[in-house]
């Protein structure tokens, strides 16, 4: 019997109204998810949720048996961004996921999670971060499964934590539009010919981001404020064996505006209850956003490719 693969609900990368978020996490509370990552990781201007709103949400989710992790923002530019990062890293009730090296400095000496935007591409690099106290590693999205297995092999995992005695758990981004890049510039505002500081928060109109297609009409990327994502939804539902071989004990599923409950149910069925991957993938395909499902990164291929026919 394989050990349970834990399911992590990644941070909501889009700007959703407060009511939508609360409803979304209400549904997550009753789902098979094990862990929920909270916090705004993309844009510091987004303000639907106040710090106390996030904390009360965390409290409710924890009361429902979910592990809560707070993520710090990936791109910090101003002193107020740093203050927000310090506020998140200062609380010790919940584990914190580091979004950048500023957060690493604040978290050193405590158990914490290495977020997907901290660049760990090799075992020696993971050892460097293990020495800081990391207990969990979310691999960079462009890293292939074979590389992930070399960085933190299940037979010989890197030990982290404050006492250097905790085997680091590997978490792999397994579903959703891939967060590919960050910029100082807001592409949603640019599209609407608005300045970033007077953006009108137009990203709230696009609960799964704003689709960017080639001139031939092929969905290619997704604009989400200062973040650029893939248009294709990365989907590793058919990779149970390869994921286990690579040492993944957790899968990160990135929230979508519609059908996310189905996504969680499909992954739980396939990874923890012997469900059929082909059927589950067909179900996810039916739900998929423009751009369809992709899995190239897992196989050391261009990310927009898919390995099945």
């Amino acid at each position, binding site marked *: 019997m394989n050990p349970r693969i834990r399911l992590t609900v990644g941070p909501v990368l889009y700007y959703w109204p407060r009511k939508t978020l609360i409803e979304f996490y209400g549904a997550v509370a009753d789902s098979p998810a094990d862990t929920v990552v909270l916090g705004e990781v993309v844009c510091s201007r987004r303000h639907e949720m106040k710090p106390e709103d996030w904390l009360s949400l965390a409290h409710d989710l924890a009361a429902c048996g979910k592990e809560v992790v707070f993520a710090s923002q990936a791109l910090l530019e101003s002193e107020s961004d740093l203050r927000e990062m310090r506020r998140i890293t200062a609380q010790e009730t919940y584990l914190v996921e580091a979004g950048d090296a500023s957060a690493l400095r604040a978290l050193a000496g405590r158990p914490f999670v290495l977020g997907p935007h901290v660049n760990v591409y090799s075992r020696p690099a993971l050892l460097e971060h293990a020495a800081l106290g990391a207990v969990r590693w979310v691999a960079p999205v462009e890293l292939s499964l074979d*590389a992930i297995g070399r960085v933190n092999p299940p037979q010989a995992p890197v030990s982290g934590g404050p006492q250097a005695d905790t085997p680091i758990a590997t978490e792999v981004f397994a579903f959703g539009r891939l967060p590919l890049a960050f910029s100082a510039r807001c592409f949603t505002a640019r599209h609407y010919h608005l300045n970033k500081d007077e953006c009108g928060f137009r990203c709230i109109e696009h609960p799964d981001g704003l689709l960017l297609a080639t001139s031939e009409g092929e969905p290619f990327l997704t604009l989400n404020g200062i973040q650029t994502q893939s248009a294709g939804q990365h989907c590793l539902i058919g990779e149970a064996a390869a994921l286990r071989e690579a040492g993944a004990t957790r899968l990160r599923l990135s929230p979508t505006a519609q059908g996310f409950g189905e996504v969680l149910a499909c992954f739980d069925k396939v990874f923890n209850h012997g469900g059929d991957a082909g059927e589950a993938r067909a179900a996810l395909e039916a739900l998929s956003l423009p751009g369809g499902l992709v899995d190239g990164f897992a196989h050391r291929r261009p990310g927009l490719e898919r390995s099945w026919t």
Partner: protein
Amino acid sequence: MSERREAAVRKPHLVCPAGSLRALKLAIDAGADAVYMGLKDATNARNFAGLNFDLAQAREGMAYAHARGAQVLMALNTYADAREPERWWRAVDTAAELGADALICADTAVLAYARDHHPQLRLHLSVQASATTYEAIEFYRERYGIQRAVLPRVLTLSQVGHVCRHTSAEIEVFGFGSLCVMVEGRCALSSYATGQSPNTAGVCSPPAAVRWEDAPEGVRARLNGVLIDSYAPDEPRGYPTLCKGRFHVEGVRDYALEEPTSLNTLAVLPQLMEFGISAIKIEGRQRSPAYVEQVTRVWRAAIDHCAAQPARFAVQPQWVAALGRWSEGQQHTLGAYNRPWR
């Protein structure tokens, strides 16, 4: 005395790109204080065919620079491959043997190796490490002893000043060249389309993935099959760097991410020098030796002028004209330093 002290502005080093031995020599002859170069493999972020140095060339370049009082900085700024991190260690050893004046690194694994095995070697934090705050820079300084950090091209001028005031590491900023609109070291757009990215392979939108094709409307430029841009017969063509293409968003075709422009920070040179920045970097190891020579010459003159009379500094029209010839899209921008889009 006090007046003299006010006038004595710290003169930043002019750090110029050397994609080849010829470019290295021209840069030094044109007044570069330092050049940066890489070896012929994936250990550096400009891993293009025909570019960079083999051992003999590196030795010759090093000797040429050192004989003229210039420094050579070795870029080892990609992330060590999980299959073969030893290749990065060997590159560090090689750089030390060659007598490089500093290594430019991004990967904590590479920084740690250099710190532990070559403690005398000066370390610069590459822009690929994405250190956008003084907290991040201090993290690398405290842990790896970096002496200088190259700032990503995403900060405003006042944010650059804020960083300078809060870290004891030297700060290097980009002065001129192609503009990455994305934060360096955190962009996987190229690997999404082609399987190769700056972090994993030292390339962005690699030439091997580019295909030009004739079309009824003119010429189409594809990257691994993805249509990045198309040009009418009379339209100037640019290299199809992924983020500089024209795409459709809600039915509008436009440069959705970034127009092809070049960064040029001549206009803010006095402020940068007032912040006490230590170095100004010129982008373009992939550009021609002629580009390197002429851009170096302009920046040498500008830095010397500014250091001599910072209060009276004005950008000279002949500098603008000279740099304009080498700009992508023939346009200049201050980039994030002054955000017209902010």
